[in-house]
């Protein structure tokens, strides 16, 4: 059988075309262009690659599901389960305010979505101003983050107009979609009540609530993993071109959500091969054949890690020299255990999910050995689950070998979400073993709901776990400042300039402001901005109470005369401050001085227009 299958693979011309496309993709993506050219190419073409892949995916989904959708009947719909999903999603969304939880990740993603919306380019704006009545991005850079999430947000901008809150709307919508998919996986594995159990387990996970109300790509990552798994099931069941295209492009898009999600191409490939083997011949519709070419931009974008060493963010954890190493495994595992079983006030975990999950993963491993022996007898959902368990395990292992892979770190804990999904799937597989005893799943459901009400909901409502992450709270504080301003035509000096630009406020990093003092003085003198503000963070010296030390990079220098506008102590050791630039000195002389003599009046219209043009050109040159 295997030999015959291999022979059919080799004799199929389409397989060779697929290999040729893959070879071209590898050559172009990895070798043909110098790093900087490749990154520039991503900025210009990245959006279009994702658009084509997304369009093919939607078209394939329509082709494979259109028959069922046409026969859809509201009477036959499972309304109680829809209610469970709706209630679960609502619980996740109502306890925390929407906001950018992980800075700068979420801001950079938003910035990329802004450029995609405005100019169909895949760059994050770093300079933007209102010059002639419309806010325009003056300069941008290609971000290291994959493009599918900003692409989706940009689509929402396209249809509803640009607003930063669209990122939250996307995540809120994805929350319901994800829970719906979890329900579908649960129902396929162990019946309807198991589906409810899966939804309840996730509804009781404060970490999910934290991300559902954020602007990051974690929800999309989870949703795409679950969707790809389910499409894998459909492919195994149907083994037709439409199902294969939908499944492959789901995997292709999943690989473009988070950096490490490219791992899931492995289970996708395994399931494709399994389907071909069961079919006795390879199926290769044209979209799948060209699929490797639609991933060309991915390795190109990844070269940012070679060009910008800071992209690995090794500087944030002094003492580490390599981003990945097996030597980090032991330490990271300790932190993972610490996260899963920490107190509700310190970590957004769920003890019910952690405890059941750890037990279920062990049971799943035992069952896996048994089921692998009789793989051909397994149901499609079990085969897809087994394949995806490989991807989920690999991802967990990769994170445990990452220098910053500590699940109890406020910035990193979101990376445990796929592991939570793995645990939920393991629980559902374990529950399937007790199909003859429905009381088991009911008892588990009752325990989960009790845990949700007594531990998770209070934890989500207090969300104490988010309080120690100062950057997130500072971002919310700065957004509140923006909302309070009656006029949006001010300039903000802040090293997180993208945050302001993404909200269509002119901004420049503090590091640049220091070097362009003369230009800023020009703006101050001419009042081209209604105000010039600066954001700074101060650290309180624990040795000497009252002594404040400015964060490195926030200091503007003595030439800038500042007046504090707003100050808040959001952390016992830190003060966040927004000040107004009152004056910029050039040596001893302030730059806001009236001219020595009043400008000569101009009455000739042509002269007036010429002066306006001259000023505008100078204005553009001096823009920070």
């Amino acid at each position, binding site marked *: 059988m295997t030999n015959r299958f291999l022979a059919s693979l080799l004799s199929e011309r389409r397989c060779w075309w697929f290999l040729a496309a893959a070879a071209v993709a590898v050559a172009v993506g990895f070798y043909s262009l110098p790093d900087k050219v490749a990154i520039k190419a991503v900025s210009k073409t990245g959006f279009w690659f994702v658009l084509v892949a997304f369009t093919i995916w939607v078209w394939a989904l329509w082709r494979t599901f259109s028959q069922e959708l046409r026969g859809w009947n509201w009477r036959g719909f499972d309304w109680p389960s829809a209610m469970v999903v709706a209630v679960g999603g609502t619980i996740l969304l109502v306890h925390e305010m929407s906001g950018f939880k992980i800075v700068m990740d979420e801001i950079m993603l938003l910035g990329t979505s802004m450029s995609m919306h405005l100019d169909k380019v895949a760059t994050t704006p770093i300079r933007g101003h209102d010059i002639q009545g419309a806010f325009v991005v003056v300069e941008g850079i290609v971000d290291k983050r994959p493009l599918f999430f900003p692409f989706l947000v940009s689509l929402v901008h396209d249809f509803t107009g640009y607003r930063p809150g669209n990122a939250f709307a996307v995540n809120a919508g994805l929350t319901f979609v994800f829970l719906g998919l979890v329900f579908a996986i649960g129902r396929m594995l162990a019946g309807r009540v198991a589906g409810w159990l899966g939804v309840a387990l996730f509804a009781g996970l404060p970490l999910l609530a934290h991300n559902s109300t954020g602007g990051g790509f974690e929800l999309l990552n989870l949703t795409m993993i679950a969707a790809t798994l389910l499409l894998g099931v459909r492919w195994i069941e149907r083994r037709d071109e439409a199902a294969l295209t939908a499944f492959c492009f789901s995997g292709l898009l999943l690989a473009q959500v988070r950096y490490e999600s490219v791992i899931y191409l492995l289970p996708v490939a395994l399931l494709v091969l399994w389907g071909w083997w069961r079919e006795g011949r390879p199926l290769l519709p044209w979209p799948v054949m060209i699929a490797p070419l639609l991933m060309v931009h991915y390795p190109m974008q990844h070269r940012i890690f070679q060009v910008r060493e800071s992209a690995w963010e090794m500087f944030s954890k002094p003492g580490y020299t390599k981003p990945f190493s097996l030597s980090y495994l032991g330490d990271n595992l300790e932190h993972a255990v610490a996260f899963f079983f920490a107190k509700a006030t310190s970590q957004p975990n769920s003890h019910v999910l952690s405890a059941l999950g750890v037990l279920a993963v062990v049971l799943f491993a035992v069952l896996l050995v048994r089921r692998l022996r009789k793989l051909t007898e397994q149901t499609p959902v079990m085969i897809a689950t087994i394949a995806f368990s490989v991807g989920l395990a690999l991802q967990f292992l990769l994170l445990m070998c990452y220098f910053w892979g500590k699940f109890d770190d406020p910035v990193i804990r979101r990376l445990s979400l796929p592991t939570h999904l793995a645990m939920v799937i393991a629980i559902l597989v374990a529950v399937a073993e007790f199909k003859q005893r429905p009381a088991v799943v009911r008892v588990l459901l009752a325990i989960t709901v009790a845990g949700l009400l007594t531990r998770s909901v209070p934890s989500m409502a207090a969300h104490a776990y988010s309080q120690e992450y100062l950057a997130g709270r500072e971002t919310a504080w700065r957004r509140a400042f923006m909302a309070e301003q009656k006029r949006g035509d001010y300039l903000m000096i802040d090293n997180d300039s993208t945050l302001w630009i993404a909200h269509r406020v002119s901004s420049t990093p503090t590091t640049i402001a220091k070097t362009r003092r003369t230009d800023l003085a020009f703006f101050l*003198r001419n009042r081209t901005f209604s105000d010039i503000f600066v954001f700074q963070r101060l650290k309180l010296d624990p040795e000497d109470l009252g002594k404040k030390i400015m964060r490195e990079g926030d200091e503007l220098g003595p030439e800038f005369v500042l007046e504090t506008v707003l100050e808040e102590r959001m952390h016992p050791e830190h003060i966040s401050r927004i000040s107004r630039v009152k004056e910029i000195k050039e040596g001893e002389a302030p730059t806001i001085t009236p001219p020595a003599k009043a400008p000569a009046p101009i009455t000739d219209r042509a002269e007036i227009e010429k002066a306006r043009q001259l000023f505008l050109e*100078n204005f553009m040159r001096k823009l920070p």
Partner: protein
Amino acid sequence: MIQRLGQLLGERAVRWRLALFALAGVAAVVLGFRLFTPDQVGRLIIHGGYPFMLALFAGFIFFAVRVAKPHRDEFAAWLRRPGWGGLAVLAATIFAVWSDFFAHKVLFDEYVLQGTAWHMHATKEIGAPIRAYDFAGTWLAVDAFLDKRPYFFAFVVSLLHDLTGFRLENVYVANTTLAALTLALTYWLVRRLTGRTGPACLAVALLATLPLFGQNATGAGMEMHNLAMITVGMVCAVLYLERPDADRLCLLVLGGALLAQCRYESALFVVPIGVVAALGWWRSGRIMLPWVVCLAPLLLVPYAWLDRFVQSKPVLWQLREGETARFALSYVANNLEGARRFFLSIAPEQANSLWLTLAGLGAIGVVVVALARWLRLPAVERPAWTASQLVVALFGLVVAGNLALLMFYYWSRLDEPIASRFSLPLYLTLALLAGWAAHALDRRWPATRVVAIGLAVWTLLLGSRAYSHRFYTQHNQVMHELNWELDQISARRGPVLVITSKATMPYLLQRIPALNTGIARTRGAELTWHQQLGTFREILVTRVLRPTTAEGDLIVDPDDALPENFQLEPITRKRFGGRWIEVCRLVAVRPEAAPAQ
């Protein structure tokens, strides 16, 4: 042919009616051009314009109902199941409205129309207020002028005010509805031309994705109304030609008279309507001259009056510095260059649709080839033109002629945001022709599908950038300036008086008394008197500051400067592009240096 003409004129009653029609024509010329002086016609329009427009509009509705009545069941059936056509028109309208934001975009024009609508609503007279005050709680216009713009659109908005109460937003309701009507009638016309849904939906999509269409559908100007009335005129003409009868002819003639009152140059559409009326007589073999048609020349008299009034008042021409005539050969080269740049632009700064331009030009090519083939056939074998083909051809020729005429106009560079709206009738014609041509080519290759795919690609590649930036609307600095001024002034506790170098209308429409800077310069004593009396809590001055060098060195714009004895205290300032707007408080007017009055 002469024999046929003789048959047509054979009836005595027809000859009498024709004589009456000729008499009405002579009377119209005398009334319109000879009998009254320009000042007298101004007064006649002010006092008689509203009743005339009301009667004309009521007559049109009356005949529209009469024509539609026998088809009531068809309408009801269509409303119950509008099908793909209904869905396409709805989606296209939503798209057009979504593609831009509601605002006054062609300043002065749109505010003057709003002012005229308000004045018509309040007084049933034609005029645009320039001064208004709150007298004991009643907001009264104390000074109005007769504007150069035809007043049918202002009349429609005033009707909305009459029915729902005065509010500025009514103009957006009107324009959105008119956009939907234009798209629906575009669908109907192409459906009539081709007998198919696909090409009709394609024409609707081509028009709705045009950024200029969305810009005007969400604006406060009269362009959408003009476009809607052109389609109404075409539909009336098709209905009449398909089955000539007296009611349909009256509907056509009244529709034509209304269309002539939409924009300055829309009177040109009287020509195709006249030709269609005559063709209808020819086709039906009888001359129909109901009373409405006999009196038709007189319906155009108010248009002639308004034109004469405008001719006599050069100040209304709004010429720019150095220009002495509205139409001249010297403008052509510049305007043609502007048109080329506009129609073929791929930059998001222009509200054009390159795909509609290309599809339309291609369609013209197809029309030319089809026409050549038709002419080469022996006369007896030539297939007769359908009513819709004739109407689209006639109206299309007038639209082309109109655009050609505009190339001689002093302010018709289509790549200027203010002037690009003049291209809308041409774009409508191109959309109709593209729908027809796609259908004609469908027999050989899937043209409708190809044009639709091309449209999708254009929308993704170029259109989407235009919609997301909306530079063509956003770069209107004066709009931003005015909105900001209104925000600043509305936020202050009233009553306030505003002195501005811009038009006073935007303030008056917000019920804020306003005065032009030029007038204020000479009314220092009166301003002081009211300051002492406490009539206004504050007198605010808005003025433009301009840079004089590359480094800035701002001065007050000479047009905005008040005499030195006007003591001003700056309140706030904001930059708009390369200039600033400053809002000041008038502290006092020192009497010692007041200019002689």
